[in-house]
């Protein structure tokens, strides 16, 4: 009897896990720009389930910026909408692209604050503050600086030049303060897979789950080359209106890092 009761419960869990893992994405064409390389970065902004390749409609973000050398540059005007037909959807969806010319050395942290996404299945809004850092010309001066946004992941490991298997360590900050015991989901960006797409023998492999320590610090060793996303999730202490009703807002801090195989 126990087994019979467990089975539907487990099946429900298996179905539920992928739906949890929404990720904002900033995907740059390169994570390290050297002196002998092209200086134009192509950036894609998406809202997806990265491991499973399911896409959500992304409205024009509220903020899209790059931080370098303590300076902020607004990149919102550079965004261009792209429409595409997702395999799992009947209608066309939008994501966003921008080209950015690297002009000076230093860490370039790209940041996006999307327009809140209404998720009817969860009866709440989702808002993922997303970051990625691109290194330029050997000046490694800013990857460990917080941006001071609502919630963010602050790398403790330099977030580029990482080998496959390296431990990525970071801290979750909420309003600039460590978020104790934050919950972090980790997913592989399968659309940019290196050496073949990841497949998943069971649902728990889709999104890895980590609990940070009392200082909001977490660690993860990336087992495959490619882009890995880290999403620290929390609930906002404010609400948004939907059809005249106040609705909860899930806020997430997302950070993307690239692992590279040893030559």
């Amino acid at each position, binding site marked *: 009897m126990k087994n019979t009761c467990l089975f539907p419960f487990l099946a429900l869990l298996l179905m539920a896990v992928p739906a949890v893992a929404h990720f904002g994405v900033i995907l740059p064409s390169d994570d390290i720009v050297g002196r002998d390389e092209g200086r134009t970065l192509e950036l894609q902004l998406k809202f997806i389930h990265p491991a499973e390749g399911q896409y959500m409609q992304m409205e024009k973000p509220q903020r899209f910026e790059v931080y370098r050398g303590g300076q902020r540059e607004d990149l919102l005007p550079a965004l261009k909408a792209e429409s595409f037909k997702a395999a799992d959807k009947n209608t066309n969806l939008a994501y966003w692209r921008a080209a950015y010319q690297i002009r*000076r050395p230093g860490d370039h942290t790209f940041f996006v604050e999307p327009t809140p996404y209404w998720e009817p299945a969860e009866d709440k809004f989702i808002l993922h503050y997303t970051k990625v850092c691109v290194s330029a010309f050997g000046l490694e*001066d800013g990857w460990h600086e917080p941006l001071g946004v609502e919630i963010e992941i602050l790398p403790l490991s330099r977030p580029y030049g990482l080998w496959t298997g390296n431990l990525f360590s970071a801290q979750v900050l909420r309003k600039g303060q460590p978020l104790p015991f934050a919950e972090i989901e980790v997913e592989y960006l399968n659309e940019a897979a290196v050496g073949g797409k990841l497949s998943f023998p069971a649902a728990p492999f889709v999104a890895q789950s980590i609990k940070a320590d009392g200082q909001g610090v977490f660690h993860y060793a990336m087992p495959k080359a490619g882009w890995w996303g880290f999403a620290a999730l929390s609930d906002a202490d404010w609400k948004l209106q939907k059809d005249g009703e106040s609705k909860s807002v899930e806020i997430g801090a997302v950070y993307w890092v690239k692992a590279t195989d040893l030559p």
Partner: protein
Amino acid sequence: MKKVVSLLLMLGLLGAVPALAHKVNLFAYVEGGRIYTESYFPDGRPIKQAVIKIYTADDLLLQQGVTDDEGLYACVIPRFVDLKLVVRASMGHQTSFVIKKAELEVGR
């Protein structure tokens, strides 16, 4: 034997760290008919009082100068050909940076 290997490994590691921290970097850009250079270590410290030389692609020396205390050096474009800039810091650390003729033309 294990101890010797560990010691050698540790010495190797200790030896490797300063080499990275002292890695010399050079970046240059062109604006208003001048070449601007920045010389720096990875953590942003400037490379002060370092000699910068500007060569043609076939190593003809065109221009030479010294970085200031902010690691900066600028000069008028010496010739509209592909240029190789070389900065030499103390202890023999040096690096180079190439500016293509096309970039010089844009920044003329």
